[in-house]
């Protein structure tokens, strides 16, 4: 399975992704420049974390106009796997490939810590080797990680089984804090 990692000007986690694919899961991986217009030959594309175009306007706002994003949209439409982490997730929402948007953290501070995720569904290509309800201890780090979507959109995401992970306490209880699905959040993109 061949992976591609997109580099935008301002991406800074592309080498983490490259390392994870090459050294941890041992699959072929190549970098994709943001000005590339073809994703031919790739099976999965990762949009890594960072600060694409400096994030000055809004996180991910300018990255959606990169030539590669048209190719990513076509790729996703044809059933290609697209995986957005942190800033990459924000870019996918800005580009309209994922619903909702990311706001500033409620406490306005950059959040950097370990927390727990509970696997809500194993019926995605990203989680099909995991157990339903399996807990993961994962680091987060972001300033704009407060996911927002209209109530109707949230309901649709829930009903479609598109909540892949949920933030929980160490014993698996849902956290009350509205925390932030980035850096470690997976975007499940399935073919229509």
């Amino acid at each position, binding site marked *: 399975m061949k992976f591609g990692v997109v580099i935008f000007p301002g991406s800074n986690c592309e080498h983490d992704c490259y390392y994870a694919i090459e050294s941890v899961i041992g699959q072929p991986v190549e970098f994709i420049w943001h000005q590339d217009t073809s994703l031919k030959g790739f099976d999965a594309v990762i949009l890594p974390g960072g600060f694409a175009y400096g994030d000055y306007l809004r996180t991910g706002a300018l990255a959606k106009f990169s030539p590669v994003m048209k190719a990513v949209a076509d790729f996703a439409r044809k059933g290609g796997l697209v995986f957005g982490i942190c800033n990459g997730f924000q870019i996918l929402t*800005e580009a309209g490939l994922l619903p*909702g*948007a990311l706001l500033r953290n*409620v406490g*306005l501070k950059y959040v950097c810590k370990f927390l727990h995720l509970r696997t809500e569904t194993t019926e995605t290509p990203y989680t099909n080797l995991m157990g339903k309800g399996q807990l993961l201890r994962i680091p987060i780090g972001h300033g704009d990680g*407060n996911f927002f979507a*209209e109530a109707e959109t949230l309901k649709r995401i829930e009903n479609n089984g598109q909540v892949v992970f949920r933030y929980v306490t160490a014993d698996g209880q849902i956290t009350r804090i509205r925390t932030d699905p980035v850096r470690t959040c997976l975007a499940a993109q399935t073919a229509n």
Partner: protein
Amino acid sequence: MKATVIVTLKPTVLDPQGMTIHRSLASLGLSDITDVRQGKIFHMRLKDGLPPERTREQVERLAKEVLTNPVIEEYRVLWE
């Protein structure tokens, strides 16, 4: 010609920055202020002699498609 684009969060969207400013104002004794919402302003200066209709259209498009995320924000354009 000058255009000003004002981008604000939709009323239904939580504004942590506005809320924090509001709390700070209250602690300064400005308790008559009942709500604060923070937004962004873009001041744009345009070349002289441009066709007004087309220019307005282009600035509107910029405001709508680039400066605003329609999921969370709304905008107004002011002209002078």
